[in-house]
């Protein structure tokens, strides 16, 4: 193949040259080119290598169906693998390489695979690498496999996401789509028209046709003007519909900046649209399909429609001397087009017995030799086509040519229709799958509906546009449907040449041949889905656009079934490969899962806090002083709480108010223990279970007043427990007269803990009497603190005298500063979560989700007493299921090391008599107690409570420790400090 640019013709702007590089060599193209058309214009014949055998391949198509010209675009962080050169609009400075070859597509060392091709039949991997173990071979095969290379650095581009609603979405801006959109928009409905190419008009861009007595492209411009004038109509070009989802949701990828050298900084690279459409009109057109014959993958063999498109849209002749091989009338259109452009047409090779005289009469190239009832049975040429062998009853002749234009018929693009759930049917007369049963509110028009005659397609599309808006209650204006010639090309099915020698490729990208399909059939992979997976037919980045239907038809022939009986494989999202960045949109980096900040976040920053994420919140882990490590800070803070006092930000703790006459009854059903008898001003610790009896949350509930409770939850459970309470109220007990109000973020919580806590709170200034007598442990008061209305809960998670001072969230920064100032003389320190966890582990206080898991029931953590409760509660019945009554269940115990003061790692397993005996349990929480000067740990141990004093082995890296089961409470077991 020796392509060249013509002096005239096409839509490229010859006054605006663009320079680009391919495989390191510099070339020039024009504005309006694709990378593919520019390469062809520069005479580049080998554009890629096949996936398995590394055979040299040239351009085969001109659109998203291109199987060969896969490139790696650009380098560095912006590099993108496996793009089709046919879909890349040329811009100044573009740089690309072919994928899957080294050092270049023209000369590829991987081509040695081709020498051994008889060792690589379908299923080769499955059969060869079974023994003794696939994993022995996997690394080597993974290295050899794959096409382009993923970028190593983060994507520097910005991606956008939009949601839209419309009455009618028209997919495809060819003549049918334009006619439908024009009719639909005329009545004022919200209409969206999307076109994957840069220009509207579809096929009119390369096959001239008259519509309404004028040139097709002039008609296109006129329709675009009408759509621009319609207020509610929107036209998106460079926009591909990639997915059709439930309830008429369509995913679109708009390539906003891909076609320019340097994007505006205020524009994203691509935009992902999710469009909910009342009605969808699919005007996606047809894909031409090839005929399969020996030697059909030589560079220079090209789809006939692509040959015309390169010629008429881009002004590029794909060769000097062409042969046309077809089973349909468009062969003569192709011959005519080439002839008109001055390209020699050496022969038309028609598989059919006869051709309609009309078609022949219309030909301007009557001097061209026409061969009927013949086939091409072989090709020659090393890296480019040089001749083809035409064989038939009367002929057996080599014809020199550097271009072979092939057409085996047309496949409506049914991908979106099938994604919508629609069922296609095989139309024997047209030899194509056409839409049959619709499931969603969509209709196909034009080529997508199997209608190849332009005039008929326009009429039907116009009517479909009128009908679609009527569904949304609009009346289209009284327009006349566009008029054009209605003749459709005649075709006689012909799928493959069954003679001759040489490989006959069906799927170019994955090197699947007719022989592979035959092998698959012999080995009984006769279902189309099995064939696909066994041979990888249609599984390459072109997703079988040129190979799918043909492969299935050949399987049908080989197994004695019709195409209809053989069926077709499923089409799945996305229609074309899509960048992950496009689907992610803005949801990346910090915005991937935004982390909540507490009201006093800035004060913690001022205090030098190191933040970590806990349960979706950024919380201070510790507040290091100059020169301190995180460990030093944690130990100092923990000790400070024991010796003086610490201030901890407990704001994320869940605070859910339950109010109403039935509040007590409701909470009795929610909590495993009783709450209804709690008196105003009192607090009680409670456990919540799910229906499986598993502990899902714990916390302190408060009775704030008559029929007024506050449910305290863990920080992580704040949102889920609020939703959980609503679910039970609304779905199971709607008769209970209550209101549930999550107040977590309305209240900030200053948790003041330590022996000097009362002194400090007094110093801050509290109106109420907070003496031990007036305000004992597990009580609640509502008062003013430093003039700010506050709810104070006297409850402790550290084992020290503690006050949880709740103030309106917006007052948190001021209050934190006020507490720190007032507390300074008493030695108050800010305390982070790390120290907090050490303190609660010293006390053996449970942390749901750390010490418990998805199987922990109350008895496992020492709460068998919930079964004494008289009334039912969520999960109660599960607690008497046999599994939950076993005595060897994992139970929560304390662990102290024997013979050292080491800190045991969380997750370490406990053994008795060596590892062979299996695990007896595992460490769930662990810390180093600065007060006790040894490690303190909690563990879940099989039957643990009955095994007090037993000593286990604990493996820790390579060291072996010994640990004894003890009571979980290591510090102040009598609780004197708590009640002080």
């Amino acid at each position, binding site marked *: 193949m020796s392509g060249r640019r013509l002096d005239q013709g096409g839509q490229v702007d010859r006054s605006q040259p663009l320079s680009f590089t391919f495989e390191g060599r510099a070339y020039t193209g024009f504005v309006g080119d694709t990378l593919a058309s520019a390469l062809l214009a520069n005479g580049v014949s080998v554009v890629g290598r096949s996936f398995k055998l590394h055979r040299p391949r040239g351009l085969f198509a001109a659109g998203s169906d291109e199987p060969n010209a896969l490139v790696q675009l650009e380098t560095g962080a912006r590099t993108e693998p496996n793009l089709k050169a046919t879909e890349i609009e040329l811009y100044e400075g573009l740089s690309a390489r072919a994928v899957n070859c080294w050092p270049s597509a023209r000369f590829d060392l991987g081509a040695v695979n081709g020498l051994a091709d008889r060792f690589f039949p379908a299923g080769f991997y499955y059969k060869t690498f079974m023994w003794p173990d696939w994993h022995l071979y996997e690394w080597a095969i993974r290295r050899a496999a794959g096409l382009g290379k993923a970028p190593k650095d983060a994507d520097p581009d910005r991606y956008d996401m939009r949601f839209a609603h419309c009455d009618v979405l028209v997919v495809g801006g060819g003549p049918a789509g334009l006619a439908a959109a024009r009719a639909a928009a005329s009545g004022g409905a919200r209409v969206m028209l999307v076109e994957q190419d840069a220009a509207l008009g579809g096929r009119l861009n390369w096959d001239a046709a008259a519509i309404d007595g004028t040139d097709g492209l002039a008609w296109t411009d006129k329709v675009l003007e009408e759509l621009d004038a319609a207020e509610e109509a929107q036209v998106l070009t460079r926009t591909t519909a990639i997915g059709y989802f439930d309830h008429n949701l369509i995913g679109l990828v708009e390539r906003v900046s891909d076609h320019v050298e340097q994007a505006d900084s205020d524009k994203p690279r691509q935009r992902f649209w999710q469009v909910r459409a009342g009605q969808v009109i699919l005007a996606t057109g047809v894909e031409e399909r090839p005929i399969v014959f020996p030697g059909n993958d030589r560079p220079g063999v090209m789809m006939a429609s692509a040959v015309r498109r390169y010629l008429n849209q881009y002004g590029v002749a794909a060769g000097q001397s062409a042969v046309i091989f077809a089973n349909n009338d468009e062969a003569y259109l192709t011959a005519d087009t080439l002839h008109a452009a001055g390209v020699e047409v050496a022969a038309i090779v028609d598989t059919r017995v006869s051709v309609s005289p009309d078609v022949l009469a219309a030909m301007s190239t009557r001097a061209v030799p026409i061969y009927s009832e013949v086939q091409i049975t072989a090709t020659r040429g090393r890296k480019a086509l040089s001749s083809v062998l035409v064989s038939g009853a009367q002929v057996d002749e080599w014809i020199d040519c550097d271009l072979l234009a092939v057409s085996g018929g047309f496949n409506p693009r049914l991908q979106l229709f099938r994604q919508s759930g629609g069922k296609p049917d095989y139309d024997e007369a047209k030899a194509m799958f056409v839409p049959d049963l619709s499931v969603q509110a969509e209709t196909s028009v034009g080529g997508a509906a199997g209608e190849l005659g332009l005039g008929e397609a326009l009429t039907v599309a116009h009517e479909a546009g009128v009908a679609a808006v009527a569904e949304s209650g609009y009346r289209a204006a009284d327009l006349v449907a566009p008029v054009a010639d209605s003749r459709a090309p005649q075709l006689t099915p012909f799928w493959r040449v069954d003679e001759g020698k040489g490989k006959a490729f069906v799927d170019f990208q994955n090197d699947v041949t007719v022989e592979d399909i035959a092998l698959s059939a012999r080995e009984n992979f006769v279902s189309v889905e099995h064939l696909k997976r066994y041979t990888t037919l249609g599984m390459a980045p072109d997703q079988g656009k040129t190979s799918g239907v043909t492969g299935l038809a050949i399987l049908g022939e080989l197994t004695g079934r019709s195409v209809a009986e053989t069926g077709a494989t499923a089409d799945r999202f996305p229609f074309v490969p899509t960048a992950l960045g496009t689907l992610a949109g803005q949801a990346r980096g910090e915005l991937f899962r935004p982390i909540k900040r507490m009201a006093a976040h800035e004060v913690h920053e001022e205090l030098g806090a190191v933040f970590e994420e806990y349960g979706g919140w950024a919380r201070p882990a510790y507040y290091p002083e100059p020169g301190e490590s995180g460990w030093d800070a944690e130990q100092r803070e923990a000790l400070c709480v024991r010796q003086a006092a610490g201030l901890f930000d407990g704001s994320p703790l869940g605070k859910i108010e339950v109010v109403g006459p039935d509040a007590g009854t409701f909470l009795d059903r929610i909590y495993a223990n009783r709450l209804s008898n709690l008196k105003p001003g009192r607090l009680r610790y409670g456990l919540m279970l799910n229906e499986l009896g598993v502990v899902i949350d714990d916390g302190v509930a408060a009775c704030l007043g008559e029929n007024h409770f506050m449910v305290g939850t863990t920080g992580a459970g704040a949102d889920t427990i609020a939703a959980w309470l*609503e679910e039970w109220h609304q779905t199971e007990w*709607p008769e209970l007269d209550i209101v549930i109000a999550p107040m977590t973020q309305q209240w900030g919580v200053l948790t003041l803990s330590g022996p000097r806590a009362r002194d400090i709170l007094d110093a801050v200034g509290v109106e109420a009497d907070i003496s031990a007598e007036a305000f004992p442990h597990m009580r609640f008061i509502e008062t003013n603190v430093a003039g700010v209305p506050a709810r104070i809960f006297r409850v402790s998670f550290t084992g020290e005298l503690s006050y949880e001072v709740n103030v309106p969230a917006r007052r948190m920064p001021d209050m934190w500063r006020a507490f720190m100032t007032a507390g300074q003389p008493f030695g108050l320190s800010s305390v982070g979560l790390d120290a907090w966890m050490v303190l609660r582990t010293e006390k053996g206080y449970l942390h749901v989700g750390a010490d418990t898991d998805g199987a922990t029931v109350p008895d496992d953590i020492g709460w068998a007493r919930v079964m004494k409760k008289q009334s039912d509660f969520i999960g109660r019945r599960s607690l008497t299921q046999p599994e939950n009554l076993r005595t060897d269940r994992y139970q929560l115990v304390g662990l102290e090391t024997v013979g050292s003061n080491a800190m045991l790692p969380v997750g370490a397993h406990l053994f008795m008599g060596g590892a062979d005996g299996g695990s007896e349990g595992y460490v769930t929480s662990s810390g180093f107690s600065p007060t006790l000067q040894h490690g303190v740990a909690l563990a879940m141990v099989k039957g643990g409570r009955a095994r007090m004093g037993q000593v286990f082995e604990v493996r820790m890296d390579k060291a072996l420790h010994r640990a004894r089961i003890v009571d979980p409470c290591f510090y102040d077991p009598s609780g004197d400090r708590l009640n002080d």
Partner: protein
Amino acid sequence: MLRITCPYCGPRDELEFRCGGEAHIVRPGPPETVSDEDWGAYLFQRQNPVGAHHERWVHEGGCRQWFHLVRDTRTHEVIAVYKMDEPKPEVPE
């Protein structure tokens, strides 16, 4: 992605909702009268029909109200939507 008509807010994308599984499951009780088998069935046995499925959904990103809907598990067609206190509609299997 489904489009669901919340009985309180109107049509919204599925993104705003959470599915709570099969609806109209009766919670057995009182606990001491329920056999292990019956309780196990309540916890784990579900209809999983081909066709009309009665489900509970909550408009979590909206009014936070629970409601019922009937969905065809083959086509995802939403056949009916009704409030918690409304009777179960008659739908073809």
